């Protein structure tokens, strides 16, 4: 019971306490510092733990006491009553016996008295003779004998007559002898004895008479105890020697008297009663009858009674004389004057003595009369006893009975049990207490541990918060510094460009400036990286969502890198699968930045071999089949797993938005590889796989970090994947939208129809492999050659075999599209170091000039001599390395086209095939807008490959729109070079075949004919902007705030409405963002609302002094089209305005 109670108590207590702890902790959390919280919580745990333990202890103690009390009290009470009854009973019986003895003694005495009276009366004649006297005595003797014999318990009966004659029967219980004792009859004068007169005064008849008769001779006559016959001769004995004869003195008032006597011959006290025998007239006492009973039997009984209980009983007289005990110890004390009664306190039995002493100590010598004493647990002789005394009030002989029973007898078992119970209870309680404490300790230990953890967690959280805050500050700081950092850099680079274009520098200076230019580029790149990172980290990177041609951009990227890489042993290969969407929605700059970083990273660590950028796409439906065909078998589990995960997550979205595409890429290189331990950490910022490479390769370790953040931002993932060979395989996927009307990239021509045969003579193994595979899939016959000798062998083989067939098919040639033979040769196959290459060319021409078309793959540094020679010989198909599918397709298309033209007798000479624009050299400038200037003169410089080929015209023009878009954020990625080159091309396109001066003219007043509404509150700015724009040829209307702007627009359009055109009054609005009355955002919203439904869309360009991209986002959000920062940059403004107004 105790256990469960205590458990429930604990259960009730502990959650409460923990809850309070928690609350405490939470309060602490909110209010105090972590250290304070820690210590206070620690102390509170300690205190609460202590309190719970104490409470438990008290509870258990109470329970124990209660249990003990309940079990104890009832048993004790009932036992006590039982014990009391027992003791009472025990005492009652000897008392009864005593009573009986007394009674019988009295009875005998009275009977004797009555008989004596009647006998004496009969013989009482005044003149009684001697004979009568003798006869009387004889009769009395017989009579007395009869009585004596009938009462075996009697010790003696005595008769003493008035005249001094004594008759007595005595029984010795020990020797079992019976005696008749009488005095000598002769000494007594019978005649003188009985006179009434004498009897009237008692003085005359006292003990003196007897004592005077001391001289009298007593005789003892042994008798047969049963018959009373004389067995021996009477022997004389001195009087009073054997027994006390009750004399007249013992009945002083004539009534019966009791007293205790002692005798020499018995060792027990004797109870003697004396009764007077009156004469007939009842005037005088004639004799005294004495009856003596030994109290021995009482002792015997007591012994029997108590024997069983091992207790003690004793009887005392009121004065304390010991009358009977339950022991065998003598009751009498021998003194000089014969045996005497002893006091109870002098008893030789130690228990009795100590009991008596105890009683006398407790009550003094006077026991309370008629009051029973009950003492429990009196300690006598080292044992506990019950002491009970009873008062027996006999007339003249009040007696006290005392019974002492060892407590052990009655309560022994109970006490033992009780003791055991107590022990068990106590030990159980102690156990419970210990267990409870232990439990509490453990419980609270858990709690305190938890609290410690919590405190640690809190401090960690705090630390992390602080760290994050500081990180945020850092990012914010960096982002804020963007403008301030990049502006001077842009200036430096721009100035360097100008300087470099200056002709009057000597070579040394030129070299130095080039060096400076390179360094500043590197610095700018680093700066951009850091800024990108901080932008991403501070969450300020906002991805654009514009359409762009992914394949095309990647091709440009590989072109760029193939130019850039210094080591020619590396082969850059682009392998995009055909199912890649042509146009995707996304941030082209960022996407390309990813690949640019990855590829440049690969280039950095690859000394020889190849770098492959593979790409394939995966909608959710295109399942693993397709994947397997494109993936290497070694493609590891992680990609699979990754994909499954993604699928599960994206499944629904994909099914809803069909145009969401999962684009997979991998960048595979044969470089030094990355240690598998570092596969994760290389994506951390400032982390490099091997710190020692920094010295060798440079770099800050930011590139891959940016890549990962960008990839993650595009809902993708990037991983380093296991690769069987040496090198690194990075795999990533992006989740990009494709425009709804997506058309997959299909090559318009079906090569099968043309019976094509292609001989790929390339020294790059991977390119050759990939191209061959792809062409074969397309149904084109392919042959490979990796070096000159192989090529010649191949050619010989092919043409000798072919000659016979050719002859046969000669007839069909005219009407059927004969087989077209294309030889694609890497310039590298020629032996350029010596003059041998011209012979080699001759050989080729000899062999197959008229049967095959040649396409040359050039290196970007292929010398002009070679190019010129090739051109001279009519090999006009030249492309720069690297070769990828688009180029291949274009080569084939061109050949087919020419073939057809040949058949149609159209001169081929129109086609100019140019090498790739040399602008793609790393010296390209950084700032687009500044570049514009340069571009205007560069514009005429050669455009890209096949640019004017009528076939590719359509594809190119479709992409024009993309290229016109202005990179509003002037953050300069590596791509800007590439961008600017395409830009220059666009400029060229717009101008058509126009001359450079025209372009320059256009540049001067580019805004001719435009009407622009300028909403600007600052007068200075108003003025500046107005002049600027007017210089460009635009017409300007100026308003001071947003409301005026809206009004101006509305009024003008209303007036316009009446007239005719549905055209808008202004071509463009330049809107300051912060203006009084109505700011730019509000005004824009208002205008867009107003426009709603009319189908108009007036371009609005924001002007703001804020330079963060979040501001840009805000601007675009409210419906503005572009964004310019103050101070107004003239060229940037013009390009922005142009890009926005061109469309209308």
């Amino acid at each position: 019971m105790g256990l469960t109670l205590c458990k429930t108590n604990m259960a009730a207590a502990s959650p409460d306490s923990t809850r309070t702890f928690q609350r405490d902790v939470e309060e602490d959390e909110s209010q105090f510092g972590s250290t304070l919280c820690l210590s206070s919580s620690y102390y509170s745990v300690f205190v609460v733990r202590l309190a719970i333990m104490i409470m438990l202890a008290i509870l258990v103690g109470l329970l124990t006491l209660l249990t003990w009390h309940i079990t104890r009290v009832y048993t004790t009470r009932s036992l006590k009553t039982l014990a009391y009854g027992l003791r009472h009973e025990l005492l009652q019986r000897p008392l009864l016996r005593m009573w009986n003895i007394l009674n019988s003694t009295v009875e005998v005495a009275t009977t004797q008295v009555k008989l004596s009276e009647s006998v004496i009366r009969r013989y009482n004649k005044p003149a009684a003779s001697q004979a009568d006297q003798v006869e009387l005595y004889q009769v009395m003797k017989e009579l007395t004998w009869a009585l004596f014999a009938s009462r075996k318990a009697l010790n003696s009966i005595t008769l003493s007559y008035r005249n001094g004659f004594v008759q007595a029967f005595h029984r010795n219980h020990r020797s079992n002898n019976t005696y008749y004792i009488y005095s000598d009859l002769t000494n007594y004068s019978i005649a003188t004895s009985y006179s009434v007169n004498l009897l009237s005064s008692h003085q005359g008849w006292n003990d003196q008479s007897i004592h005077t008769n001391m001289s009298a001779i007593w005789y003892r006559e042994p008798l047969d105890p049963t018959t009373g016959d004389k067995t021996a001769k009477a022997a004389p004995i001195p009087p009073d020697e054997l027994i006390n004869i009750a004399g007249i003195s013992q009945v002083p008032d004539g009534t019966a008297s009791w007293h205790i006597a002692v005798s020499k011959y018995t060792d027990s006290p004797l109870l003697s009663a004396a009764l007077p025998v009156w004469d007939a007239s009842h005037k005088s006492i004639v004799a005294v009858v004495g009856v003596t009973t030994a109290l021995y039997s009482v002792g015997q009984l007591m012994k029997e009674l108590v024997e069983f209980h091992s207790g003690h009983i004793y009887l005392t007289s009121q004065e304390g004389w010991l009358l009977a005990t339950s022991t065998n110890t003598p009751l009498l004390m021998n003194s000089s004057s014969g045996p005497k009664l002893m006091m109870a306190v002098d008893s030789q039995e130690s228990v009795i003595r100590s009991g008596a002493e105890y009683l006398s100590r407790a009550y003094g010598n006077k026991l309370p009369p008629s009051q029973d004493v009950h003492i429990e647990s009196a300690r006598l002789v080292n044992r506990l006893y019950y002491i009970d005394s009873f008062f027996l009030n006999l007339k003249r002989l009040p007696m006290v009975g005392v019974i002492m029973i060892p407590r052990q007898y009655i309560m022994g078992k109970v006490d033992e049990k009780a003791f055991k119970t107590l022990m068990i209870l106590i030990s159980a309680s102690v156990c419970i207490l210990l267990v409870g404490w232990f439990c509490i300790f453990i419980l609270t230990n858990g709690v305190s541990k938890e609290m410690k953890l919590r405190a640690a967690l809190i401090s960690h959280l705090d630390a992390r918060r602080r760290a994050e805050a500081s990180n945020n500050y850092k990012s914010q700081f960096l982002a804020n510094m963007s403008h301030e950092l990049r502006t001077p850099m842009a200036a430096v680079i721009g100035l360097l460009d100008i300087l470099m274009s200056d002709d009057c520098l000597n070579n040394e200076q030129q070299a130095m400036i080039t060096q400076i230019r390179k360094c500043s580029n590197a610095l700018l790149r680093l700066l951009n990286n850091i800024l990108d990172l901080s932008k991403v980290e501070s969450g300020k990177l906002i991805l654009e969502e514009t359409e762009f041609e992914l394949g095309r951009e990647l091709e440009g990227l590989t072109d760029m890198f193939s130019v850039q890489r210094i080591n020619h042993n590396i082969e850059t290969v682009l392998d995009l699968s055909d199912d890649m969407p042509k146009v995707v929605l996304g941030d082209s700059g960022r996407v390309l930045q990813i690949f640019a970083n990855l590829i440049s990273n690969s280039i950095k660590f690859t000394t020889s071999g190849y770098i492959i950028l593979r790409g394939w796409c995966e909608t959710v439906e295109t399942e693993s089949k397709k994947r397997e065909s494109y993936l290497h078998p070694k493609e590891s589990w992680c990609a699979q797993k990754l994909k499954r995960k993604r699928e599960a997550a994206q499944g629904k979205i994909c099914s809803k938005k069909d145009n969401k595409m999962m684009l997979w890429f991998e960048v595979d290189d044969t470089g030094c590889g990355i240690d598998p331990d570092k596969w994760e950490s290389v994506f951390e910022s400032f982390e490099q796989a091997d710190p020692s490479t920094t010295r060798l390769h440079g770099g800050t370790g930011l590139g891959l970090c940016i890549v990962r953040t960008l990839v993650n931002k595009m809902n993708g993932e990037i991983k380093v994947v296991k690769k069987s060979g040496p090198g690194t395989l990075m795999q990533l996927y992006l989740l990009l939208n494709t425009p709804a009307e997506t058309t997959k990239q299909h090559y318009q021509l079906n090569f099968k129809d043309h019976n094509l045969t292609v001989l790929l003579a390339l020294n790059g193994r991977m390119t050759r492999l990939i191209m061959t595979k792809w062409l074969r899939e397309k149904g084109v016959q392919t042959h490979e050659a990796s070096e000159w000798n192989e090529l010649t062998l191949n050619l010989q083989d092919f043409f000798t075999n072919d000659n016979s067939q050719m002859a046969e098919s000669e007839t069909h040639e005219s009407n059927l599209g004969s087989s077209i033979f294309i030889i694609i040769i890497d310039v590298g196959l020629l032996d350029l170091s010596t003059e041998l290459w011209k012979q080699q060319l001759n050989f080729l021409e000899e062999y197959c000039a008229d049967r095959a078309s040649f396409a040359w793959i050039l290196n970007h540094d292929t010398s002009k001599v070679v190019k010129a020679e090739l051109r001279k010989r009519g090999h006009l198909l030249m492309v720069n390395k690297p070769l990828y599918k688009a180029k291949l397709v274009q080569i084939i298309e061109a050949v087919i086209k020419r073939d057809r033209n040949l058949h149609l007798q159209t001169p081929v000479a129109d086609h100019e095939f140019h090498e790739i624009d040399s602008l793609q050299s790393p010296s390209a400038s950084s700032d687009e807008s500044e570049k514009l200037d340069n571009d205007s003169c560069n514009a005429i410089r050669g455009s890209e490959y096949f640019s004017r080929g009528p076939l590719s015209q359509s594809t190119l023009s479709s992409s024009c729109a993309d290229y016109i878009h202005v990179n509003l954020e002037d953050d300069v990625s590596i791509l800007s070079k590439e961008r600017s080159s395409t830009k220059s091309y666009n400029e060229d396109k717009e101008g058509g075949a126009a001359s450079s001066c025209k372009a320059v003219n256009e540049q001067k007043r580019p805004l001719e004919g435009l009407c622009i509404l300028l909403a600007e509150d600052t007068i200075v700015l108003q003025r500046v902007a107005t002049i600027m724009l007017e210089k460009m040829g635009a017409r300007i209307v100026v308003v001071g705030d947003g409301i005026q702007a809206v009004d101006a627009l509305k009024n003008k359009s209303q007036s316009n409405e009446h007239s005719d055109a549905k055209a808008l009054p202004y071509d463009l609005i330049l809107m300051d963002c912060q203006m009084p009355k109505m700011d730019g955002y509000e005004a824009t919203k208002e205008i867009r609302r107003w426009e709603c439904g009319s189908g108009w869309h007036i371009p609005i360009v924001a002007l703001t002094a804020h330079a963060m991209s979040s501001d840009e986002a805000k601007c675009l959000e409210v419906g503005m089209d572009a964004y310019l920062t103050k101070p107004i940059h003239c060229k940037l403004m013009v390009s922005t305005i142009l890009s926005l107004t061109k469309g209308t």
Partner: protein
Amino acid sequence: MEIVGQLQKQFVDFSTSLNHEGFLDEQYLQLQKLQDESNPDFVCEVVSLFFDDSEKLLNNLATALQQQVVDFKQVDAHVHQFKGSSSSIGAQRVKNMCVAFRNFCEEKNLDGCLRCLQQLKHEYFLVKNKLETLFRLERQIVEAGGTVPVIG
């Protein structure tokens, strides 16, 4: 001619020093480029516009900051405007001061604002003096019959 040459040299030195010390930046050069025969006094005009505007704004700012309850939004708007106009003429140091001022505005730090206002005034008068000197030099050159050299 000697004088003209000297003046021109002085002018060039002075304007480069202005550029160098950060009083004026490339925006000012742009303004100068915008000035041609169709707008002969363009720079002068814009700068005087700037002076008017600035003095008005400085007054506004002073009153706004003396209010019992300072409306920091209002102050911020003024400073923003000041920043716009100063950056438009290329008064770089004024502009930078405006940036600092705006930070104090965001913090609603009245003391900082007042201090900034003082500094702003200081900077403004500095740049005003410099510009006036520049214009005087220009005028002198023109009067002496020379042409104002183009900086940049």
